[in-house]
């Protein structure tokens, strides 16, 4: 007890020291004024004192859990148990789907529009999840593929007046092609090098779009991109928002089906094995380059597709829409939701997009919280909010053998 108190006191004093210059002193060297915010010391002291208790408690719990897991005692939360129940899961999904379908009828255009943004991030999260969550390839430049899709629609629409539905697959294929071309030389790299190189690709994409004026119209961006057409029917803003919403719902459902099927297939198992141990993986006869490339390119494909929809939704894109910040948000969606878990990623996307939208007061602290959440999740709940659901296999075995045992 006393030990704990002492420890927390030390932590609290340490943080007061640590945050002193940045949180207490504010110096404005333009107007030559210094503001001393002494009250912040108090907040930091109390905050870090309390949090240090939490920290220790959580660490203790984590270590206990780890030990239990090693001894084979599975610790399942009630949520996880409920999700493992297939009947319950299917019913919940049906309810959710119905809710999703009637959403625009209940809520106004603004809500629908926000929901479209959230759904865009759901697909982005699921796409990145293929690379990061399943195959263990940390991609920090994922937004570049999103940009490829968005720009392919914007450019084809601007110069050749091509429609949304024609470009939709083209965007996906272009994203995929970029994934293959970029992925080919770099996928031999180890995980952390890969992260930094992909980060570079993300930045290069932005610089290219800024400089290549003749193609991308430079930093001022491309405006007046057509919204998706529906047999030439003229639609009002509200109608077309609803229309895009349903397109997104369809795409999300498609993405879920595809990633779910892939995850529980021969290819998906190979991805997961690759994440676990590359050397054992190749020794089991899995072609590493091909498997990595397929995960990377497939992730890029979804980003490309959803990029087209993004361009059609905002009707305007510029290079500034595709910064590292976007990549970081998509990554936090995957990390927060649960790497490899489809349901988790969906939940993550909704939390990260809708929370700052509805809690306006929170929006200023958005990135601060995301950053902290990434660290905390890695330490205390690396499997994310909802961990990966396990596939259940049916097998008969050899009868005489079981009788024998």
């Amino acid at each position, binding site marked *: 007890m006393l030990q704990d108190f002492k420890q927390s006191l030390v932590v609290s004093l340490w943080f007061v020291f640590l945050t002193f210059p940045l949180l207490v002193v504010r110096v404005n*060297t*333009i*107007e030559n004024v210094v503001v001393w*915010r002494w009250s912040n010391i108090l907040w930091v002291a109390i905050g870090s004192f309390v949090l240090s208790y939490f920290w220790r408690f959580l660490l203790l719990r984590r270590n206990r859990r780890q030990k239990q897991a090693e001894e084979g005692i599975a610790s399942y939360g009630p949520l996880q148990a409920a999700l493992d129940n297939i009947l319950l899961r299917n019913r919940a999904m049906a309810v959710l789907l119905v809710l999703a379908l009637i959403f625009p009828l209940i809520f*106004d*255009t*603004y*809500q629908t*529009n*926000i929901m479209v*943004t959230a759904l865009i991030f759901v697909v982005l999260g699921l796409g990145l999840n293929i690379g990061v969550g399943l195959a263990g390839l940390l991609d920090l430049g994922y937004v570049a593929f999103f940009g490829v899709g968005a720009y392919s629609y914007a450019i084809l629409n601007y110069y050749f007046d091509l429609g949304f539905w024609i470009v939709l697959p083209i965007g996906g294929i272009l994203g995929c092609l970029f994934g293959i071309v970029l992925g080919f030389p770099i996928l031999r790299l180890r995980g952390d090098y890969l992260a930094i190189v992909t980060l570079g690709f993300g930045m290069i994409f932005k*610089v290219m779009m*800024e*400089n290549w004026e003749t193609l991308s119209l*430079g*930093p*001022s*961006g491309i*405006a*007046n991109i057509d919204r998706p057409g529906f047999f030439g029917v003229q639609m*009002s*803003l509200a109608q077309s*928002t609803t229309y895009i919403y349903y397109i997104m719902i369809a795409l999300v459902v498609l993405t879920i089906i595809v990633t779910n099927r892939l995850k529980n297939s021969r290819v998906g198992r190979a991805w997961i094995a690759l994440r676990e141990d590359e050397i054992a993986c190749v020794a089991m006869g899995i072609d590493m380059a091909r498997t990595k490339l397929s995960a990377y390119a497939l992730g890029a494909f979804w980003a490309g597709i959803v990029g087209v929809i*993004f361009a059609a*939704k*905002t*009707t*305007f*894109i*510029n290079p*500034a*829409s595709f910064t590292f910040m976007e990549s970081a948000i998509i990554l936090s969606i995957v990390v927060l939701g649960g790497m490899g878990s489809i349901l988790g990623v969906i939940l993550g996307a909704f939390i990260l997009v809708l929370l700052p*939208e509805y809690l*306006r*007061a929170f*929006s*200023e602290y*958005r*990135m601060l919280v995301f950053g902290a959440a990434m660290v905390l999740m890695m330490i205390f709940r690396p499997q994310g909010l909802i961990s990966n659901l396990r596939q259940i296999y049916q097998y008969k075995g050899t009868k005489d053998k079981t009788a024998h045992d």
Partner: protein
Amino acid sequence: MKRMVVLCVSFVLCLAVTGVSAETIKLGVAGPHSGDLAPYGIPTMRAAQLVVKQINEQGGVLGKQVELLIQDDQCNPNIATNVATRLVSDGAHVVLGHICSGATRAALGTYREAKIPVMSPSATNPPLTQSGEYPNFFRTIASDDMQAKLAVDYALNSLGVKKVAVLHDRGDYGRGFAEFAKQALDEKEIEVVLFEGITPGAMDYSSIIQRVRREGADSLIFGGYHPEASKLVTQLERRRVDAVFISDDGVKDESFLNVAGSAAEGAYMTGPKDLSALPLNKAAVDAFQAAYGAEPGAFFQEGYAAALALLNAVQKAGSTDYDAVVNALRTEYVETPVGLIKFDEKGDAEGVGFSMFKVENGTFVEMQ
């Protein structure tokens, strides 16, 4: 932290007001209010608050109270479209915003469809008005090409430059300015020895400055903002490069004088005409200082003017009907901190002009 509180309070106030009176004139305000670009959006938001407070105290517009709908777009085009739909859903009658050209362009389509007049205090991208695509768009600031033309004319006629290096920060604003400047120079057949983008946030620009010297440029036109500009002029001075520095409104900032210090001396830049002598301008700044105890910041006057112009147009139009309001904006003069203005067919403010400024003894001095 204070900003946070103000935001919260204003948000709560908005909610409270919605609850009380059903019949209000709704003025939407959109711009970056959080994140790194917030310094460009907050002053306009505060200007709108000051204007609305004053007008409501005097009985409102058309006998109704004015209600503010404040939305943060973070200068992100995607969020800007969401914000636009939000404002449309919330029934905004007129919108003051957005701040960044990119976000403005992204949001304008939505407003156009919903027939809402929009007025930006800061989006200077020329096509916004000149393309004719957005009849609902107005602005209280001159466009980039006007700035560039002014800068080039001044450089040629008053400074007599012969060889020009043009740099920009690759951004929307900076690159636009640089390209218009180059266009104007080409028309006058003045040699442009260098046209290049620099990386904003790079450690230093000494190499490119060496290049400016090597190309023998007698002047350097830069499109961009003050952080890069101060690095450039500092290097010019340190490297003893004898070239006149000419730039845009994004550089005309107190920070530029402070960061660059002596190196800023003799630099030229465009900027809105100095109207601090105008009584209305003085009143606006005083009101700000009384409320917040600090200098107003970027685009405060323009934002103040836009809020006044929009509400005045509603008053003159006698209703919030789109056509009537737009017509009023185009025909009725209004007294604002940026002068007596009305708007032309394209949406640019008549009577808002730019001047050249020169840094002399650590202050901006308007050139005649």
